[in-house]
């Protein structure tokens, strides 16, 4: 494959924190610091070089940036002080807005299909409904099976009042303001996208 900077220039401009990718010096400290490294196909370092090499599809379709748990180990250790966690999230978001993200990626499914819908509907996370949606994502049979697997944990949490079994109804105070904020964020994001 031939190096081509078109994709990199897109990412620098349009992905949140994407411009930081320029500054990576490929030392690999992030790769060595990531507790989930074994589950990534490409480390942050590799992902950044793939951006520079112009491997658009490989980067955007990759499962990698969805694996980040935001532990911030890489940010703390990066000798070039890159906000790696944020760059990774920026890349994930960029993949999503480009419609390139793999729809079956579990984290992406949770984030986009479950979490986002749940939180934007009321303004806060409804734990019971969130869990339910997550468990029954793949149909009733799979949902029941998952539920049974987690039975002990759930009962324990109920007993110690860590889980409210009654779904949250209604909306948070100032829900209108909340939706306005979201609309503004979407507008800003669109502006970024439209930038030359």
């Amino acid at each position: 494959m031939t190096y081509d900077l078109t994709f990199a220039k897109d990412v620098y401009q349009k992905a949140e924190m994407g411009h930081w990718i320029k500054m990576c010096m490929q030392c690999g400290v992030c790769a060595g610091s990531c507790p989930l490294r074994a589950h990534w196909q490409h480390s942050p370092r590799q992902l950044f070089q793939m951006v520079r090499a112009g491997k658009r599809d490989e980067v955007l379709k990759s499962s990698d940036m969805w694996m980040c748990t935001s532990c911030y180990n890489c940010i703390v250790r990066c000798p070039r002080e890159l906000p790696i966690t944020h760059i990774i999230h920026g890349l994930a978001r960029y993949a999503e807005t480009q419609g390139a993200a793999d729809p079956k990626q579990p984290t992406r499914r949770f984030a986009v299909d479950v979490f986002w819908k749940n939180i934007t509907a009321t303004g806060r996370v409804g734990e019971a409904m969130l869990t339910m949606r997550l468990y029954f994502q793949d149909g009733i049979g799979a949902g029941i099976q998952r539920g049974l697997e987690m039975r002990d944990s759930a009962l324990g949490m109920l007993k110690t009042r860590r889980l409210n079994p009654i779904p949250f109804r209604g909306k948070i105070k100032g829900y209108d303001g909340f939706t306005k904020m979201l609309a503004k964020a979407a507008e800003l994001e669109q502006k970024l996208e439209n930038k030359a």
Partner: protein
Amino acid sequence: MEPKKIGCYICTGCGIGDALDLKALKAIATKEQKIPVVKDHALLCGSEGVAMIQKDLDDGTVNAVIIAACSHREKSAEFRFDIDLMERVDLRDKGIWLLDVKEGDETAEEDRQMMAEDYLRLGSVKMKKMDIPSPFLHSEGSKDVLVVGGGLAGLTAARDIAKAGYNAVLVEKSDTLGGKMNSMLKVTPDNLPPYRDMADNFIGALISEVEADNRIKIFKNATVTKTSGQPGQFDLIIKNASSTKEIRVGSIVVATGFDLYDPAKLPANLGYGSSPDVVTSAEFEKMAKEGKIVRKSDGQPAKRVAFALCAGQRDKEHLDYCSGACCIYSMKQAMYVIDQFGIDASTYLIYQEIRTPGQMEDFYRAAQEKGAVFIKGDVTGVSGQAKGGVAVQVNDHLMRGKESLEVDLLVLATGMVSTVDTTDPNVASPVGTGRDELPGSILNLQYRQGPSLPRLGASGFPDSHFICFPYETRRTGIYVAGPARRPMGIAATMTDASGAALKAIQAVEAVAQGVAVHPRSGDLSFPSYRAEGCTQCKRCTEECPFGAINEDDKGNPLFNPARCRRCSTCMGACPAKVISFANYSVDMISTMIKEIEIPEEDEEKPRILVFACTNDAVPALDMMGRLRSPISPYIRIIPLRCMGSLSLVWIADAMSKGFDGVLLMGCRHGDDYQCHNVRGSALAENRLSKVSETLQRLKLESNRVKMVEVNIMDAETLPGVIGSFVEQISNLNPNPYKGF
């Protein structure tokens, strides 16, 4: 000369008084060594103790001082007296601190006392054998400095010499000043923050400054055809097309810069010559300066440019070394492209490791910020394309595989080759890396060891210890600065030139006072020889690491004291023992060896003599004392100026005196030497290879003598080294010469 009146002052502080029998010690000084004044003090380095010594000096009771206290490396500021003869006896650091004595262990206490008494004897004998050195002075010396080369390094050196109030003579071979800087569009950052931006080329301003300075005399189109004499009185012949001038200067700065490696010799995979769109950095710089960053094939703008760093550098077949500045200047050139074409620019730097000496890491960041892409990998192939530009095949270490680049230009960052003629008298063939022809001699030195400067390793650069003594060459008073010394960029070159200028000034001042320059700065002594004993064997003239000795018509040595660094290698080399210094001689050390008391064989107290280099081994031993790492109480240490001064006579003396073994502690030698006198320890080891003859003649085992390399940092490993030698000796029978 006034007769020597020796005073011996023993310190009893730091536990010395508790550990040793002071009365017995004083008896050694007074009764055995017959020293007229012997005093002790509980805190000799305190104001009271120092005043006690000063009083004896002031009232004329004493004019030579022995201080028996700590190592000579301690309290040197306190024990600073205005006298010519002083000797420090180390009872503490290399004495009581190196012995592990349990309370009430009478044998160990006795051994400790014997050791201290021996050290006092050594100091006393040494003092008796010392004469007051008188400096080598001459009246017609010059304090002017010759600067060869009118590029950045030479101009900076000349300017700084003039700024410091000295006269400089600047010799430039071409008809213009400025050198390679003249071809540059912009320059990499200098030594001032923020180190991020390219700077305007300032060479014009520097040239004007130098040309306007009336302390600087400039010769253009000129070369130095002859350099004879010594620091303070170097006599030069400077020639140009029409005239010949004879000039005397005091010291010399060589700043002749670099040549670039011949791109035609580069490996084929870099593709030089395969397409007009493969150019060298120098060619690219020229294009940028002319405002034409275009494909050479069809004149189209070159918006996509790849830079191959290490084009021949760090490659055993080409340049074995890192050229130090290519990463940086390639980043600068990438910035040219980005600044010109903005968002349309694509620049790639294909590197092995990015090296950013000095403050240049910030410049690297600036290049990244501008969007230059860095690819760690090797260029495996280049092919010209019909549509113009080239395709570059890369073995990409970051992407772990083969990648390719389609670019308008491939720029090869070729490395620097020294312009200084270097030869090593110890290696047969001269090397000039990557050249068809060797460079002509720059100084044409009229030295016994040849017209050139000795080189370091196989690189072709002049020898200059890069950490301990930059700028120094192996020719005293001649300093090399800038890329002539080692490859370097603009910021480093300017610092280097200033450093060499100051060294050159230091040299003329030292010579005017008749004292040595580095590493024995301030030493007044210099070698002389007994002509009637000389056998004209020429070993001294061949071995002197600094080429200080010429030969007269009869083949006798002709010392140039101002070239001498006082390492005493000549003294150690001389088989006839005719070379000596006022305060250091073969006889002095021989007498010291003979003064050490050797117990009878049946006492079962062996004796091992250690000759320790005063530059590295002695500090390491001092550090061992501080760490209280115990060694055998049977060891006696004699510091030497340099292992190079080792005379084989001393080994014979030690053996016939009854020492059971001799351990020599010299510095590391070889290409990465640490010897302050460059060749001292190497020559000593060479001499030692002949010691087995001496031992055979005495019917002794050859493993009684051993040489080890000791680094100043070796305090933790040295006890093991000493321990294993002591064990090796204890496995042998006692030396049968004891008691003879």
